Protein backbone atom coordinates (compact mmCIF):
# COMPACT_ATOMS: atom_id res chain seq x y z
CA UNK A 1 0.00 0.00 0.00
CA UNK A 2 2.69 2.37 1.09
CA UNK A 3 4.64 1.48 -2.02
CA UNK A 4 1.75 2.34 -4.26
CA UNK A 5 1.37 5.78 -2.77
CA UNK A 6 5.00 6.55 -3.41
CA UNK A 7 4.66 5.47 -7.00
CA UNK A 8 1.76 7.79 -7.44
CA UNK A 9 3.46 10.80 -6.09
CA UNK A 10 6.37 10.34 -8.38
CA UNK A 11 4.49 9.84 -11.58
CA UNK A 12 2.41 12.99 -11.24
CA UNK A 13 3.49 15.82 -13.54
CA UNK A 14 6.33 17.53 -11.76
CA UNK A 15 5.39 21.09 -12.43
CA UNK A 16 1.72 20.92 -11.55
CA UNK A 17 0.54 23.59 -9.22
CA UNK A 18 -2.30 22.93 -6.80
CA UNK A 19 -5.71 23.33 -8.31
CA UNK A 20 -7.28 24.50 -5.08
CA UNK A 21 -7.08 28.20 -4.24
CA UNK A 22 -4.00 28.93 -2.17
CA UNK A 23 -4.67 30.16 1.33
CA UNK A 24 -3.04 33.61 1.20
CA UNK A 25 -4.55 35.25 4.23
CA UNK A 26 -2.12 36.42 6.88
CA UNK A 27 0.22 38.51 4.68
CA UNK A 28 3.25 39.47 6.70
CA UNK A 29 6.29 39.44 4.48
CA UNK A 30 7.92 37.33 3.24
CA UNK A 31 4.95 35.02 3.58
CA UNK A 32 5.11 31.23 3.82
CA UNK A 33 5.02 29.85 0.33
CA UNK A 34 1.62 28.71 -0.86
CA UNK A 35 2.10 24.97 -1.01
CA UNK A 36 -0.01 21.99 -1.97
CA UNK A 37 -2.97 22.09 0.40
CA UNK A 38 -2.61 19.31 2.91
CA UNK A 39 -6.27 18.50 3.17
CA UNK A 40 -6.46 16.85 -0.19
CA UNK A 41 -3.29 14.91 0.32
CA UNK A 42 -4.88 13.27 3.30
CA UNK A 43 -8.08 12.32 1.60
CA UNK A 44 -6.04 11.00 -1.27
CA UNK A 45 -3.79 8.95 0.95
CA UNK A 46 -6.67 7.06 2.46
CA UNK A 47 -8.80 6.90 -0.64
CA UNK A 48 -7.67 3.42 -1.57
CA UNK A 49 -8.30 2.04 1.91
CA UNK A 50 -11.65 3.81 2.10
CA UNK A 51 -12.74 2.51 -1.28
CA UNK A 52 -11.84 -1.04 -0.31
CA UNK A 53 -13.71 -0.77 2.96
CA UNK A 54 -16.78 0.63 1.29
CA UNK A 55 -16.70 -2.20 -1.23
CA UNK A 56 -16.38 -4.78 1.53
CA UNK A 57 -19.27 -3.30 3.51
CA UNK A 58 -21.44 -3.18 0.40
CA UNK A 59 -20.65 -6.80 -0.34
CA UNK A 60 -21.53 -7.84 3.22
CA UNK A 61 -24.74 -5.83 3.03
CA UNK A 62 -25.81 -7.33 -0.27
CA UNK A 63 -25.17 -10.84 0.94
CA UNK A 64 -26.85 -10.30 4.31
CA UNK A 65 -29.92 -8.88 2.63
CA UNK A 66 -29.97 -11.92 0.36
CA UNK A 67 -30.39 -9.84 -2.74
CA UNK A 68 -28.54 -12.53 -4.63
CA UNK A 69 -28.52 -16.20 -3.73
CA UNK A 70 -25.40 -17.27 -1.83
CA UNK A 71 -24.82 -19.62 -4.74
CA UNK A 72 -23.72 -16.63 -6.74
CA UNK A 73 -22.40 -14.38 -4.04
CA UNK A 74 -21.44 -15.87 -0.70
CA UNK A 75 -20.89 -13.47 2.17
CA UNK A 76 -17.42 -12.13 3.01
CA UNK A 77 -17.55 -14.15 6.18
CA UNK A 78 -18.11 -17.37 4.28
CA UNK A 79 -15.25 -16.52 1.98
CA UNK A 80 -13.05 -15.77 4.95
CA UNK A 81 -13.85 -19.18 6.41
CA UNK A 82 -13.05 -20.81 3.10
CA UNK A 83 -9.71 -19.01 3.02
CA UNK A 84 -8.83 -20.18 6.50
CA UNK A 85 -9.86 -23.69 5.59
CA UNK A 86 -7.71 -23.63 2.47
CA UNK A 87 -4.72 -22.39 4.38
CA UNK A 88 -5.08 -24.84 7.22
CA UNK A 89 -6.39 -27.96 5.55
CA UNK A 90 -5.65 -27.36 1.91
CA UNK A 91 -7.82 -28.52 -0.95
CA UNK A 92 -7.55 -31.53 -3.20
CA UNK A 93 -4.70 -32.83 -1.12
CA UNK A 94 -2.38 -29.85 -1.03
CA UNK A 95 -2.17 -26.43 0.50
CA UNK A 96 -3.23 -23.13 -1.01
CA UNK A 97 0.37 -22.00 -0.78
CA UNK A 98 1.35 -24.81 -3.15
CA UNK A 99 -1.23 -23.59 -5.64
CA UNK A 100 0.02 -20.06 -5.33
CA UNK A 101 3.61 -21.12 -5.75
CA UNK A 102 3.09 -23.31 -8.78
CA UNK A 103 0.88 -20.77 -10.56
CA UNK A 104 3.27 -17.94 -9.82
CA UNK A 105 6.15 -19.93 -11.25
CA UNK A 106 4.18 -20.70 -14.40
CA UNK A 107 3.20 -17.08 -14.83
CA UNK A 108 6.70 -15.85 -14.13
CA UNK A 109 8.34 -18.12 -16.66
CA UNK A 110 5.70 -17.54 -19.32
CA UNK A 111 5.73 -13.80 -18.78
CA UNK A 112 9.49 -13.40 -18.71
CA UNK A 113 9.67 -15.61 -21.79
CA UNK A 114 7.19 -13.30 -23.49
CA UNK A 115 9.34 -10.28 -22.69
CA UNK A 116 12.58 -11.93 -23.74
CA UNK A 117 10.96 -13.00 -26.99
CA UNK A 118 8.61 -10.11 -27.59
CA UNK A 119 10.81 -7.08 -27.10
CA UNK A 120 13.52 -8.04 -29.63
CA UNK A 121 10.88 -9.27 -32.07
CA UNK A 122 9.00 -6.01 -31.74
CA UNK A 123 12.17 -3.98 -32.23
CA UNK A 124 13.08 -5.97 -35.31
CA UNK A 125 9.58 -5.74 -36.75
CA UNK A 126 9.45 -2.02 -36.25
CA UNK A 127 12.77 -1.49 -37.94
CA UNK A 128 12.60 -3.94 -40.81
CA UNK A 129 9.73 -3.81 -43.19
CA UNK A 130 10.53 -7.30 -44.46
CA UNK A 131 10.47 -8.90 -41.02
CA UNK A 132 7.31 -6.99 -40.21
CA UNK A 133 5.58 -8.33 -43.26
CA UNK A 134 6.61 -11.88 -42.55
CA UNK A 135 5.71 -11.96 -38.87
CA UNK A 136 2.78 -9.55 -38.70
CA UNK A 137 0.11 -11.70 -40.38
CA UNK A 138 0.83 -14.62 -38.06
CA UNK A 139 0.94 -12.39 -35.04
CA UNK A 140 -2.32 -10.68 -35.90
CA UNK A 141 -3.82 -13.98 -36.73
CA UNK A 142 -2.84 -15.68 -33.50
CA UNK A 143 -3.80 -12.72 -31.35
CA UNK A 144 -7.60 -12.96 -31.44
CA UNK A 145 -7.63 -16.75 -31.21
CA UNK A 146 -8.84 -17.74 -27.76
CA UNK A 147 -6.33 -19.78 -25.77
CA UNK A 148 -9.01 -22.39 -25.11
CA UNK A 149 -9.05 -23.12 -28.81
CA UNK A 150 -5.44 -24.04 -29.28
CA UNK A 151 -5.03 -26.12 -26.18
CA UNK A 152 -5.48 -29.34 -28.18
CA UNK A 153 -2.68 -28.34 -30.53
CA UNK A 154 -0.37 -27.53 -27.63
CA UNK A 155 -1.16 -30.84 -26.00
CA UNK A 156 -0.48 -32.76 -29.18
CA UNK A 157 2.78 -30.99 -29.79
CA UNK A 158 4.14 -30.59 -26.31
CA UNK A 159 2.36 -33.21 -24.23
CA UNK A 160 0.73 -32.51 -20.90
CA UNK A 161 3.66 -31.39 -18.77
CA UNK A 162 4.63 -27.89 -17.74
CA UNK A 163 5.80 -26.85 -21.20
CA UNK A 164 2.38 -26.45 -22.87
CA UNK A 165 1.06 -24.52 -19.85
CA UNK A 166 3.92 -22.08 -19.93
CA UNK A 167 3.73 -21.84 -23.71
CA UNK A 168 0.05 -21.00 -23.54
CA UNK A 169 0.76 -18.12 -21.17
CA UNK A 170 3.61 -17.03 -23.40
CA UNK A 171 1.54 -17.15 -26.59
CA UNK A 172 -1.19 -15.15 -24.93
CA UNK A 173 1.17 -12.49 -23.66
CA UNK A 174 3.77 -12.11 -26.37
CA UNK A 175 1.57 -10.24 -28.89
CA UNK A 176 0.83 -7.59 -26.27
CA UNK A 177 4.53 -7.05 -25.71
CA UNK A 178 5.29 -7.02 -29.43
CA UNK A 179 2.58 -4.51 -30.27
CA UNK A 180 3.64 -2.23 -27.42
CA UNK A 181 7.27 -2.43 -28.48
CA UNK A 182 6.48 -1.66 -32.10
CA UNK A 183 4.37 1.26 -31.04
CA UNK A 184 7.15 2.56 -28.83
CA UNK A 185 9.68 2.30 -31.62
CA UNK A 186 7.42 4.10 -34.07
CA UNK A 187 6.99 6.90 -31.56
CA UNK A 188 10.73 7.54 -31.32
CA UNK A 189 11.31 11.18 -32.30
CA UNK A 190 13.24 11.15 -35.56
CA UNK A 191 15.74 13.71 -34.26
CA UNK A 192 17.02 11.15 -31.77
CA UNK A 193 17.72 8.75 -34.59
CA UNK A 194 19.41 11.41 -36.71
CA UNK A 195 21.67 12.39 -33.82
CA UNK A 196 22.77 8.81 -33.27
CA UNK A 197 23.34 8.19 -36.96
CA UNK A 198 25.49 11.24 -37.39
CA UNK A 199 27.49 10.30 -34.32
CA UNK A 200 28.46 7.10 -36.09
CA UNK A 201 26.17 4.64 -34.31
CA UNK A 202 25.63 1.41 -36.22
CA UNK A 203 22.12 0.12 -36.76
CA UNK A 204 22.50 -2.30 -33.87
CA UNK A 205 23.83 0.42 -31.60
CA UNK A 206 20.92 2.66 -32.53
CA UNK A 207 18.70 -0.22 -31.55
CA UNK A 208 20.28 -0.71 -28.21
CA UNK A 209 21.12 2.82 -27.16
CA UNK A 210 18.40 4.93 -28.75
CA UNK A 211 15.38 2.97 -29.87
CA UNK A 212 15.16 0.66 -26.90
CA UNK A 213 15.26 3.43 -24.28
CA UNK A 214 12.86 5.53 -26.33
CA UNK A 215 10.43 2.65 -26.56
CA UNK A 216 10.87 1.71 -22.92
CA UNK A 217 7.93 3.69 -21.51
CA UNK A 218 5.58 1.97 -23.93
CA UNK A 219 7.22 -1.39 -23.35
CA UNK A 220 6.51 -0.98 -19.66
CA UNK A 221 2.90 -0.16 -20.41
CA UNK A 222 2.75 -3.29 -22.54
CA UNK A 223 4.24 -5.30 -19.70
CA UNK A 224 1.61 -4.01 -17.35
CA UNK A 225 -1.15 -4.96 -19.74
CA UNK A 226 0.64 -8.24 -20.42
CA UNK A 227 0.82 -9.36 -16.81
CA UNK A 228 -2.96 -9.18 -16.61
CA UNK A 229 -3.35 -11.13 -19.83
CA UNK A 230 -0.90 -13.73 -18.56
CA UNK A 231 -3.03 -14.33 -15.50
CA UNK A 232 -6.23 -14.66 -17.47
CA UNK A 233 -4.46 -17.28 -19.58
CA UNK A 234 -3.62 -19.19 -16.44
CA UNK A 235 -7.01 -20.80 -16.02
CA UNK A 236 -6.91 -21.99 -19.60
CA UNK A 237 -3.36 -23.24 -19.09
CA UNK A 238 -4.36 -25.16 -16.01
CA UNK A 239 -7.10 -26.93 -17.90
CA UNK A 240 -4.24 -28.91 -19.42
CA UNK A 241 -3.88 -31.89 -17.14
CA UNK A 242 -3.05 -29.85 -14.09
CA UNK A 243 -3.78 -30.91 -10.57
CA UNK A 244 -2.40 -27.87 -8.82
CA UNK A 245 -2.42 -24.17 -9.28
CA UNK A 246 -4.85 -21.32 -8.72
CA UNK A 247 -6.46 -21.77 -12.14
CA UNK A 248 -7.03 -25.39 -11.38
CA UNK A 249 -8.43 -24.48 -7.96
CA UNK A 250 -10.97 -22.07 -9.40
CA UNK A 251 -11.95 -24.56 -12.03
CA UNK A 252 -12.11 -27.61 -9.81
CA UNK A 253 -13.98 -25.91 -6.99
CA UNK A 254 -16.36 -24.42 -9.54
CA UNK A 255 -17.31 -27.87 -10.71
CA UNK A 256 -17.88 -28.90 -7.14
CA UNK A 257 -20.09 -25.81 -6.68
CA UNK A 258 -17.93 -24.43 -3.89
CA UNK A 259 -18.40 -20.79 -4.69
CA UNK A 260 -16.63 -19.55 -1.57
CA UNK A 261 -13.50 -21.38 -2.60
CA UNK A 262 -13.81 -20.03 -6.13
CA UNK A 263 -13.96 -16.54 -4.69
CA UNK A 264 -10.95 -17.18 -2.51
CA UNK A 265 -9.13 -18.27 -5.67
CA UNK A 266 -10.25 -15.15 -7.51
CA UNK A 267 -9.14 -12.92 -4.66
CA UNK A 268 -5.77 -14.59 -4.42
CA UNK A 269 -5.30 -14.23 -8.18
CA UNK A 270 -6.36 -10.61 -7.98
CA UNK A 271 -4.04 -9.82 -5.09
CA UNK A 272 -1.02 -11.51 -6.66
CA UNK A 273 -1.77 -9.87 -9.99
CA UNK A 274 -2.00 -6.51 -8.28
CA UNK A 275 1.27 -7.16 -6.46
CA UNK A 276 3.01 -7.97 -9.73
CA UNK A 277 1.59 -4.81 -11.26
CA UNK A 278 2.98 -2.75 -8.39
CA UNK A 279 6.33 -4.45 -8.80
CA UNK A 280 6.42 -3.54 -12.48
CA UNK A 281 5.51 0.03 -11.56
CA UNK A 282 8.49 0.19 -9.24
CA UNK A 283 10.74 -1.01 -12.04
CA UNK A 284 9.12 1.45 -14.40
CA UNK A 285 9.70 4.33 -12.05
CA UNK A 286 13.38 3.42 -11.85
CA UNK A 287 13.81 2.73 -15.54
CA UNK A 288 11.98 5.65 -17.13
CA UNK A 289 12.11 8.61 -14.76
CA UNK A 290 12.15 10.93 -17.76
CA UNK A 291 8.60 10.07 -18.81
CA UNK A 292 6.67 13.24 -19.70
CA UNK A 293 9.83 15.33 -19.81
CA UNK A 294 11.26 14.46 -23.19
Amino acid at each position, binding site marked *: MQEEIIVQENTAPADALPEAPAPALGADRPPPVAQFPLRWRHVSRFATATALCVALVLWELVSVLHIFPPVALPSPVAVWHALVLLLVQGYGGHSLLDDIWISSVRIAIGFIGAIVLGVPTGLLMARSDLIFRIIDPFLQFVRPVPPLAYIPLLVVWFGIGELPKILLILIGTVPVIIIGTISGVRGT*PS*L*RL*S*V*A*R*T*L*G*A*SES*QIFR*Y*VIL*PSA*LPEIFTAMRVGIGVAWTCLVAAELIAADQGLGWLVQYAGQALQVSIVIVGIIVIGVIGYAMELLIRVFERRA*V*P*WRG*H*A
Partner: protein
Amino acid sequence: MPILVDRVCKDFGPLRVLDDVSLTIEDATFVTILGSSGCGKSTLLNMLAGLTPPSAGRLTLDGSNVTRPGPDRVVVFQQAGLYPWLSLRDNIAFGLRMKSARSIDWARVDELIEVMGLKGFENHRTYELSGGMQQRVAIARALVMRPRVLLMDEPFGALDAQTRHTMQQFLLGLWERIRATVVFITHDIDEAILLGDRLIVMSARPGRVALERVVPLARPRHWDMTLDPEFLDLKRQAMAILAA
Protein backbone atom coordinates in the same frame (compact mmCIF):
# COMPACT_ATOMS: atom_id res chain seq x y z
CA MET B 1 37.46 16.54 -46.43
CA PRO B 2 36.36 18.51 -49.48
CA ILE B 3 32.63 18.82 -50.05
CA LEU B 4 30.94 19.30 -53.40
CA VAL B 5 27.34 20.40 -53.77
CA ASP B 6 26.39 20.04 -57.39
CA ARG B 7 23.23 21.66 -58.76
CA VAL B 8 21.18 20.42 -55.82
CA CYS B 9 17.44 21.01 -55.63
CA LYS B 10 15.14 19.98 -52.83
CA ASP B 11 11.37 19.87 -52.94
CA PHE B 12 8.93 19.09 -50.16
CA GLY B 13 5.86 18.19 -52.15
CA PRO B 14 4.99 21.24 -54.22
CA LEU B 15 7.34 23.44 -52.20
CA ARG B 16 10.76 24.08 -53.72
CA VAL B 17 13.08 24.77 -50.82
CA LEU B 18 16.49 24.68 -52.45
CA ASP B 19 16.96 25.62 -56.06
CA ASP B 20 20.06 24.72 -58.01
CA VAL B 21 22.56 25.15 -55.19
CA SER B 22 26.20 24.54 -56.10
CA LEU B 23 29.09 24.87 -53.67
CA THR B 24 32.68 23.75 -53.52
CA ILE B 25 34.12 23.55 -50.04
CA GLU B 26 37.80 22.76 -49.81
CA ASP B 27 39.30 20.57 -47.16
CA ALA B 28 39.86 22.14 -43.75
CA THR B 29 37.97 25.33 -44.48
CA PHE B 30 35.51 27.01 -42.19
CA VAL B 31 32.42 27.96 -44.17
CA THR B 32 29.66 30.02 -42.61
CA ILE B 33 26.15 30.26 -44.03
CA LEU B 34 23.73 33.12 -43.53
CA GLY B 35 20.18 33.15 -44.76
CA SER B 36 16.74 34.24 -43.72
CA SER B 37 14.58 31.98 -41.62
CA GLY B 38 13.03 29.21 -43.67
CA CYS B 39 15.32 29.58 -46.66
CA GLY B 40 16.56 26.00 -46.50
CA LYS B 41 19.76 26.14 -44.48
CA SER B 42 18.86 23.25 -42.22
CA THR B 43 17.65 21.30 -45.22
CA LEU B 44 21.03 21.74 -46.91
CA LEU B 45 22.81 20.66 -43.75
CA ASN B 46 20.64 17.59 -43.45
CA MET B 47 21.54 16.62 -46.98
CA LEU B 48 25.24 17.06 -46.29
CA ALA B 49 24.78 14.91 -43.21
CA GLY B 50 23.25 12.23 -45.40
CA LEU B 51 19.89 12.31 -43.63
CA THR B 52 17.76 13.38 -46.60
CA PRO B 53 18.43 12.79 -50.27
CA PRO B 54 18.31 15.73 -52.67
CA SER B 55 15.41 15.88 -55.14
CA ALA B 56 17.89 16.54 -57.92
CA GLY B 57 21.62 17.03 -58.19
CA ARG B 58 24.45 15.49 -56.29
CA LEU B 59 26.40 15.92 -53.07
CA THR B 60 29.83 14.39 -52.73
CA LEU B 61 32.25 14.14 -49.89
CA ASP B 62 35.85 13.46 -50.72
CA GLY B 63 34.68 12.52 -54.20
CA SER B 64 32.04 9.93 -53.32
CA ASN B 65 28.30 10.43 -53.17
CA VAL B 66 26.71 11.24 -49.86
CA THR B 67 24.04 8.61 -49.32
CA ARG B 68 24.00 8.17 -45.58
CA PRO B 69 25.37 9.61 -42.36
CA GLY B 70 28.92 8.66 -41.58
CA PRO B 71 31.17 8.99 -38.57
CA ASP B 72 33.35 11.39 -40.55
CA ARG B 73 30.59 14.03 -40.40
CA VAL B 74 29.27 15.12 -37.06
CA VAL B 75 26.24 17.38 -36.80
CA VAL B 76 25.06 19.90 -34.22
CA PHE B 77 21.36 20.16 -34.91
CA GLN B 78 19.21 23.22 -34.48
CA GLN B 79 17.38 21.48 -31.63
CA ALA B 80 19.55 19.99 -28.92
CA GLY B 81 18.12 16.46 -29.28
CA LEU B 82 19.61 15.12 -26.06
CA TYR B 83 18.80 11.69 -24.69
CA PRO B 84 16.71 12.12 -21.55
CA TRP B 85 17.73 8.74 -20.16
CA LEU B 86 21.40 9.70 -20.07
CA SER B 87 23.15 12.05 -17.72
CA LEU B 88 24.80 15.15 -19.12
CA ARG B 89 28.17 13.44 -19.10
CA ASP B 90 26.89 10.33 -20.83
CA ASN B 91 25.17 12.45 -23.45
CA ILE B 92 28.48 14.06 -24.29
CA ALA B 93 30.27 10.70 -24.36
CA PHE B 94 27.57 9.13 -26.54
CA GLY B 95 29.51 9.27 -29.80
CA LEU B 96 32.70 8.01 -28.21
CA ARG B 97 30.79 5.10 -26.73
CA MET B 98 29.46 4.24 -30.18
CA LYS B 99 33.01 4.11 -31.48
CA SER B 100 34.33 1.96 -28.70
CA ALA B 101 32.71 1.57 -25.35
CA ARG B 102 35.94 0.53 -23.65
CA SER B 103 38.26 3.31 -24.60
CA ILE B 104 36.19 6.41 -23.93
CA ASP B 105 38.55 9.30 -23.38
CA TRP B 106 36.88 10.63 -20.25
CA ALA B 107 39.53 13.26 -19.83
CA ARG B 108 38.47 14.82 -23.11
CA VAL B 109 34.83 14.65 -22.06
CA ASP B 110 35.51 16.32 -18.76
CA GLU B 111 37.66 18.96 -20.40
CA LEU B 112 34.74 19.88 -22.65
CA ILE B 113 32.35 19.96 -19.70
CA GLU B 114 34.71 22.41 -18.08
CA VAL B 115 35.04 24.55 -21.19
CA MET B 116 31.29 24.59 -21.77
CA GLY B 117 30.72 25.80 -18.24
CA LEU B 118 28.73 22.74 -17.31
CA LYS B 119 30.83 21.66 -14.38
CA GLY B 120 28.80 20.47 -11.43
CA PHE B 121 26.00 19.27 -13.73
CA GLU B 122 27.70 16.08 -14.93
CA ASN B 123 25.09 13.83 -13.43
CA HIS B 124 22.06 15.97 -14.10
CA ARG B 125 19.31 14.77 -16.35
CA THR B 126 18.97 16.71 -19.56
CA TYR B 127 15.51 18.00 -18.66
CA GLU B 128 16.98 19.60 -15.59
CA LEU B 129 19.13 21.89 -17.72
CA SER B 130 18.37 25.35 -19.02
CA GLY B 131 17.89 25.87 -22.76
CA GLY B 132 21.39 27.26 -23.24
CA MET B 133 22.93 24.46 -21.21
CA GLN B 134 21.20 21.88 -23.37
CA GLN B 135 22.58 23.51 -26.46
CA ARG B 136 26.06 23.48 -24.99
CA VAL B 137 25.74 19.78 -24.25
CA ALA B 138 24.81 19.18 -27.88
CA ILE B 139 27.85 21.15 -29.02
CA ALA B 140 30.15 19.28 -26.66
CA ARG B 141 28.72 15.97 -27.83
CA ALA B 142 29.76 16.83 -31.39
CA LEU B 143 33.13 18.45 -30.65
CA VAL B 144 34.31 15.59 -28.49
CA MET B 145 34.30 13.46 -31.64
CA ARG B 146 36.97 15.61 -33.37
CA PRO B 147 35.44 14.78 -36.73
CA ARG B 148 36.89 15.58 -40.15
CA VAL B 149 33.68 17.37 -41.10
CA LEU B 150 31.65 19.38 -38.63
CA LEU B 151 28.15 20.56 -39.55
CA MET B 152 26.68 23.08 -37.15
CA ASP B 153 23.15 24.52 -37.31
CA GLU B 154 22.91 27.72 -35.26
CA PRO B 155 24.87 26.18 -32.43
CA PHE B 156 25.17 29.35 -30.37
CA GLY B 157 21.63 30.56 -30.89
CA ALA B 158 20.47 30.17 -27.30
CA LEU B 159 23.59 31.56 -25.63
CA ASP B 160 24.23 34.92 -24.06
CA ALA B 161 26.91 37.13 -25.56
CA GLN B 162 29.57 36.24 -23.04
CA THR B 163 29.14 32.49 -23.23
CA ARG B 164 28.89 32.79 -26.97
CA HIS B 165 32.25 34.50 -27.20
CA THR B 166 33.89 31.88 -25.04
CA MET B 167 32.41 29.20 -27.29
CA GLN B 168 33.53 30.96 -30.44
CA GLN B 169 37.07 31.24 -29.16
CA PHE B 170 37.11 27.63 -28.13
CA LEU B 171 35.68 26.47 -31.44
CA LEU B 172 38.27 28.39 -33.42
CA GLY B 173 41.06 27.08 -31.22
CA LEU B 174 39.89 23.53 -31.62
CA TRP B 175 39.50 23.99 -35.35
CA GLU B 176 43.07 25.23 -35.67
CA ARG B 177 44.14 22.03 -34.02
CA ILE B 178 41.96 19.44 -35.75
CA ARG B 179 41.62 21.26 -39.09
CA ALA B 180 38.19 19.90 -39.85
CA THR B 181 35.98 21.10 -42.65
CA VAL B 182 33.30 23.17 -40.90
CA VAL B 183 29.92 24.22 -42.21
CA PHE B 184 28.45 26.68 -39.74
CA ILE B 185 24.93 28.12 -39.99
CA THR B 186 24.22 31.25 -38.02
CA HIS B 187 21.92 34.25 -37.87
CA ASP B 188 24.57 36.50 -36.45
CA ILE B 189 26.32 38.33 -39.31
CA ASP B 190 29.27 39.36 -37.15
CA GLU B 191 29.74 35.80 -36.03
CA ALA B 192 29.52 34.52 -39.57
CA ILE B 193 32.24 36.86 -40.83
CA LEU B 194 34.43 36.59 -37.79
CA LEU B 195 34.54 32.80 -37.76
CA GLY B 196 34.54 31.87 -41.43
CA ASP B 197 37.16 31.47 -44.12
CA ARG B 198 34.32 31.78 -46.58
CA LEU B 199 30.92 33.37 -46.18
CA ILE B 200 27.87 32.12 -48.04
CA VAL B 201 24.66 34.10 -48.01
CA MET B 202 21.51 32.44 -49.25
CA SER B 203 18.51 34.13 -50.77
CA ALA B 204 15.04 33.72 -49.34
CA ARG B 205 13.05 30.60 -50.25
CA PRO B 206 13.65 28.95 -52.64
CA GLY B 207 17.21 29.08 -51.30
CA ARG B 208 19.96 29.93 -53.79
CA VAL B 209 23.55 30.95 -53.25
CA ALA B 210 23.27 34.74 -53.42
CA LEU B 211 26.76 35.62 -52.23
CA GLU B 212 29.93 33.64 -51.79
CA ARG B 213 33.03 35.45 -50.55
CA VAL B 214 36.39 34.66 -49.02
CA VAL B 215 36.55 36.52 -45.70
CA PRO B 216 39.41 38.98 -46.08
CA LEU B 217 40.61 38.77 -42.49
CA ALA B 218 43.77 37.22 -41.12
CA ARG B 219 43.76 34.57 -38.45
CA PRO B 220 43.74 34.50 -35.49
CA ARG B 221 40.57 36.56 -35.38
CA HIS B 222 39.43 38.81 -32.58
CA TRP B 223 36.52 41.10 -31.92
CA ASP B 224 38.41 44.27 -32.80
CA MET B 225 38.24 43.15 -36.40
CA THR B 226 34.55 43.94 -36.49
CA LEU B 227 35.63 47.53 -37.05
CA ASP B 228 37.97 46.74 -39.99
CA PRO B 229 36.80 48.28 -43.23
CA GLU B 230 36.97 44.86 -44.98
CA PHE B 231 34.75 43.44 -42.32
CA LEU B 232 32.26 46.27 -42.57
CA ASP B 233 32.23 46.05 -46.35
CA LEU B 234 31.43 42.35 -46.31
CA LYS B 235 28.86 42.89 -43.62
CA ARG B 236 27.17 45.54 -45.70
CA GLN B 237 27.01 43.24 -48.73
CA ALA B 238 25.51 40.45 -46.68
CA MET B 239 22.96 42.73 -45.08
CA ALA B 240 21.90 44.05 -48.45
CA ILE B 241 21.08 40.55 -49.62
CA LEU B 242 19.34 39.55 -46.43
CA ALA B 243 17.24 42.69 -46.42
CA ALA B 244 16.07 42.05 -49.99
